[in-house]
């Protein structure tokens, strides 16, 4: 949908002058001007507002009634050295190392990307983006989105699903950074699609997979 017009020059990160942000050095700091990410600071759970959107405070959020829509969003942030990660849902940090031994993310030494971030926004789940500026500079920020509003349907052919998931059928793969499977995610998937997803089986487990997929396909809602 909207082909050819999928670029949004959103503008500065939604940071307001006077906001308080935590810093990498264990203190807190104040945003000196709108859209400025202070030195050594990181944000918590940023969402992007859009007047007229389903949720005007979170432009990428839709409810499960929008189950036939899927937003594929790639964001480009300036300055491009900024660290980015996303919490799905908001407030649930997803980065882990050695089970739960180490929590990672923008406020840690690893577990983030820089400058560019690509996700799919699942309906009924609020995502919280985090940005971190590890330099000593207070930086003016800018965000550009390139997105696609797909009209989607789950294939009803269990063999096709198996071939996609066993990588025998060409398809685009995008891994969402979900390590901690929060009940909000499970509920969002169930309410939106009727199922929480399809198990990935080995290519020699075809019959087992097909059996399960057939059963799940009776419950899908889109």
């Amino acid at each position, binding site marked *: 949908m909207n082909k050819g017009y999928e670029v949004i020059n959103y503008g500065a990160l939604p940071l307001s002058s006077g906001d308080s942000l935590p810093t990498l050095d264990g203190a807190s700091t104040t945003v000196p001007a709108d859209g400025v990410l202070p030195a050594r600071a990181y944000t918590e759970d940023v969402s992007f507002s859009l007047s007229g959107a389903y949720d005007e405070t979170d432009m990428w959020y839709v409810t499960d009634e929008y189950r036939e829509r899927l937003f594929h969003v790639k964001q480009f942030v300036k300055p491009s050295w900024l660290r980015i990660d996303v919490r799905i849902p908001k407030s649930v940090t997803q980065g882990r190392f050695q089970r739960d031994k180490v929590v990672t993310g923008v406020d840690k030494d690893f577990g983030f990307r820089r400058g560019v971030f690509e996700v799919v926004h699942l309906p009924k789940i609020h995502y919280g983006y985090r940005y971190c500026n590890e*330099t*000593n500079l207070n930086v*003016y920020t800018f965000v550009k989105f390139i997105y696609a509003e797909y009209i989607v349907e789950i294939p009803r052919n269990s063999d096709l699903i198996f071939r996609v998931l066993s990588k025998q059928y060409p398809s685009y793969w995008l891994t969402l950074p979900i390590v901690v499977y929060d009940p909000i995610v499970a509920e969002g998937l169930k309410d939106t699609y009727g199922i929480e997803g399809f198990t990935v089986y080995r290519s020699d487990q075809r019959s087992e997979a097909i059996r399960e997929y057939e059963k799940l396909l009776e419950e899908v809602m889109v």
Partner: protein
Amino acid sequence: MVSELLTLYGTASVSAGGSGDFTLTSPMIYGSFTYIRIPKGMKAKIWAKRLAGTVGYTLQINFTHDVTASTPTWSVIDSEHLSSAGMESLEKRRPIVVIARTGKEAVKLSYANTTGGGTIYVDVEIEITDEE
């Protein structure tokens, strides 16, 4: 690949034989600063320098391994001399490269050997990148 090109501007009122650090500004940066701390794992590449002034001076590019130390140790890694009033523009086909191995590395610009009293200017193109 991550790459951001910044132009840093500095100016100073000086007297003969003076030296000091430039206070810098940049359109992408709010406020002023005297050094740039380089993100861990990234590099700073200095591609171009422009010196100008109503008097001559020496521009020095300084580097420290640890800007968080109570008294950082700065080393001059490059210098350029403007011999008298005027302007000099230098572009580097091979940039000056500074690598951040700990995230505490920083660069700053300073001036020395001013030839008289007046105003001096500098601008520098610096790229922050993770490219080899």
